[in-house]
C-alpha cells in the first residue's frame, strides 16, 4: 500500500476504517497495521483486563476485550457451600458495592424460600443501596477523569466523599468495603445509635460536593472536547446487546429496574430517571451526576421515615437454610446495571445451580463498537465510562 492510497482513505472515513482486502485475505498484518496488547497490567484498565487493539496509526480498527485474569470460581464455590456462606463471597464480586451485591443475592434467596422482609429492614436496604450508589458513582467519575488526564484532583475529591460513606458502612456493618450485611429476610444487625444522624449529615452535605465537582468539570472545555461525541452507543445497539444501568440510560432508553420491577419499597420514593441524549462519554458522566442527585431524593425521605421494628424475619433460618426445590431470579438496579442472581434449589443446603448476571461483563461486550475509529486515548476513557469492576467481570 503506498502513501497515496492511504491518505484519502484516512481523511474520508476514519470511523469506518476496515482491514484492507489484502490483510483480511491472509489474516496477517503486513506492517501497515499495528497490533497492541493493552493490559492486563495497564493503569487505565481498572484491574487486570486486556484489550487486544489493532491500530492504523493512532486509530483503532479492531478491539478485542480479553478477561478472565481474575477468575475465582465464585459460582462453582457457591454451589458447593451453604446459602449463608455465599453472602461474603458476593461482597467480592463488585467490591465497590458490596451492599447491593448482598441485596441482590438475598432477594433471590428470599424469592426461593418465600421469606418476608420487615419494614425497617426494607428501609435499611434502600438506604444502604443508595449510599452505595453515591459512593460508586462518585469514585467512578473520579476514575473517569483520571483516565482523561486530570491527574487525580477530582479523584481525590471523590474519594474524600466516598470515605464518609465508607465510614458509615464501617460503623454499621464492621467493614468498609466487604460489608456482608444483608441476610435472608432482613439485615444482620440493627443501626447503631446515632447512625441515622450521621447518615443525614452525609446526605445533606453531599450536594455541596456535587456542585463543587460540577464546577470543576462539567463546563470544562478540555473535558467537553475529550468526551463529547466519543464512544457513542446507539440506542438500538444498547438494547440489542442487553446493556443495562447508566450506560443504557445515557443512550436514552428509559429502563430502571427500581421503576420497572419495584423491588423493595422503591415505589414509595419520588425520584426520576435521568436519561441521556447522545449516548457518548459526556452523557454518561452527566447521567451519573444526575443519578446521584436523584439518589439523594430517595435517601432524604428514607432516613426521615424509617420505622422502628424488627430487622429480620424471625422465621428466616440463616444457617442450614433448605429452600423447597425450585428456581428463582432476583434482580436489582445495582449502580453498574442489572445485577441478578439465578438460583436453582434441589432442596438441599446448597444451591444446585448458582449463576450471577454481572452488569459489568455484559456492558463490556459492546466495547469494540464504541471504540472503532477512535484513538487509543479515547478507548481508555470509553472503557472508563463503562464502569467495570473486574471482580465482577471475571467472578
Amino acid at each position, binding site marked *: 500500500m503506498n502513501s497515496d492510497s492511504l491518505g484519502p482513505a484516512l481523511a474520508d472515513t476514519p470511523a469506518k476504517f476496515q482491514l484492507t482486502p489484502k490483510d483480511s485475505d491472509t489474516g496477517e498484518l503486513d506492517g501497515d497495521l499495528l497490533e497492541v496488547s493493552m493490559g492486563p497490567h495497564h493503569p487505565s484498565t481498572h484491574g487486570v483486563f486486556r484489550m487486544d487493539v489493532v491500530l492504523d496509526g493512532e486509530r483503532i480498527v479492531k478491539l478485542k476485550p480479553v478477561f478472565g485474569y481474575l477468575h475465582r470460581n465464585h459460582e462453582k464455590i457457591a454451589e458447593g457451600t451453604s446459602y*449463608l456462606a455465599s453472602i461474603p463471597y458476593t461482597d467480592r464480586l463488585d467490591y465497590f458495592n458490596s451492599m447491593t451485591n448482598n441485596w441482590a443475592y438475598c432477594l433471590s434467596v428470599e424469592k426461593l424460600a418465600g421469606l418476608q422482609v420487615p419494614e425497617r429492614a426494607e428501609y435499611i436496604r434502600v438506604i444502604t443501596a443508595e449510599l452505595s450508589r453515591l459512593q460508586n458513582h462518585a469514585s467512578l467519575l473520579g476514575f473517569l477523569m483520571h483516565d482523561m488526564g486530570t491527574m487525580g484532583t477530582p479523584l481525590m475529591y471523590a474519594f474524600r466523599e466516598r470515605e464518609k460513606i465508607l465510614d458509615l458502612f464501617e460503623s454499621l456493618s464492621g467493614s468498609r468495603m466487604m460489608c456482608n450485611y444483608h441476610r435472608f429476610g432482613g439485615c444482620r444487625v440493627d443501626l447503631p445509635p446515632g447512625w441515622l444522624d450521621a447518615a443525614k449529615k452525609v446526605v445533606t452535605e453531599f450536594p455541596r460536593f456535587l456542585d*463543587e465537582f460540577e464546577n470543576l468539570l462539567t*463546563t470544562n*472545555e478540555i473535558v467537553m472536547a475529550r468526551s463529547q461525541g466519543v464512544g457513542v452507543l446507539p440506542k438500538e445497539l444498547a438494547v440489542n446487546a442487553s446493556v443495562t444501568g447508566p450506560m443504557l440510560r445515557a443512550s436514552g432508553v428509559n429502563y430502571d429496574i427500581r421503576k420497572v420491577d419495584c423491588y423493595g419499597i422503591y415505589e414509595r420514593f419520588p425520584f426520576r430517571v435521568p436519561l441521556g441524549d447522545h449516548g457518548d462519554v459526556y452523557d454518561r458522566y452527566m447521567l451519573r451526576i444526575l443519578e446521584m442527585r436523584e439518589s439523594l431524593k430517595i435517601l432524604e425521605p428514607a432516613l426521615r421515615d424509617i420505622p422502628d421494628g424488627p430487622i429480620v424475619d424471625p422465621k428466616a433460618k440463616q*444457617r442450614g437454610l433448605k429452600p423447597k426445590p425450585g428456581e428463582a431470579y432476583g434482580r436489582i438496579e445495582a449502580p453498574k446495571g442489572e445485577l441478578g442472581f439465578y438460583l436453582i434449589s434441589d432442596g438441599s443446603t446448597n444451591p444446585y445451580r448458582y449463576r450471577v448476571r454481572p452488569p459489568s461483563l455484559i456492558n463490556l461486550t459492546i466495547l469494540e463498537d464504541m471504540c472503532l475509529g477512535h484513538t487509543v486515548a479515547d478507548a481508555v476513557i470509553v472503557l472508563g465510562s463503562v464502569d467495570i469492576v473486574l471482580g465482577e467481570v471475571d467472578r
Partner: protein
Amino acid sequence: MLGTGIIKGLVETARNFTGSYHDPARLTTVQYPEEKHPLPENARNFPFLVHDGDDPEKGLRCVACLICEKECPPQCIYIVAERDEKGKVIRHPKLFDIDISVCMSCQICLEVCPFDAIKMDTEFELSKHGRFEDLLLHKQQLAKSNDYYRQIHPTEAAEVDARLAEAKAKQTAKVTPAKPVGQASSLSQSQSPAAPPAPAVPA
C-alpha cells in the same frame, strides 16, 4: 467564552487548597502512625476466642462443636476436639487454629456459634515476618479474655453477658426441680457439674 470552564474549575481547586489550611471539612487526612482515626464499635478484623476468668486454657467457651469449621466460607478454621483417656470426646478444643492469611473477616463463624465463644477482634496492625507460620494462629494466640471483649465491643459484650446469664439462670432452674424437694434451695451450683457445661459467666 472559551476557557471560562477551566477558570471556574481552577477557582474550585484554589478554594480547596486554601481551605485545607483552615477548614477541617477539606483536610480529612491524619498522620497515620502518630494519629489514628478511632475505630467504630462494630469494627471487625479477625476472629478470636473468648475465655472467662484468668486461665486462657480452662476458661475457653469453645466446646469444639465444629459448627464454625463447617460454616466458614474459605475454610480457614481447623479444630480437633480433646479426648479423655478412654477416647471419649470432651467438650473442649485440643487444637483450634485459624489461618488468618485465608480468613476473609466475614464473621460468619461468629454468627453461627451457639456458645458466643468466637468474636471479632479489632486489631489491624498485624504485619509479621513469617509468611505462613506466623499467620497461622493457634489456640494460645487466639484466646483473649472476656474483659478484652468488653473493652473493644462494649455494647455487644453487654448483650452477650446478659444472654449467657439468662441461659445459666434457666439451666439452674431446670436442674433444681430434679433434686429432692427439701434440698432444692440448699444445693449450690457447684454441686451440679454433671450438667452439660454451659459457658461460665463471671459474676
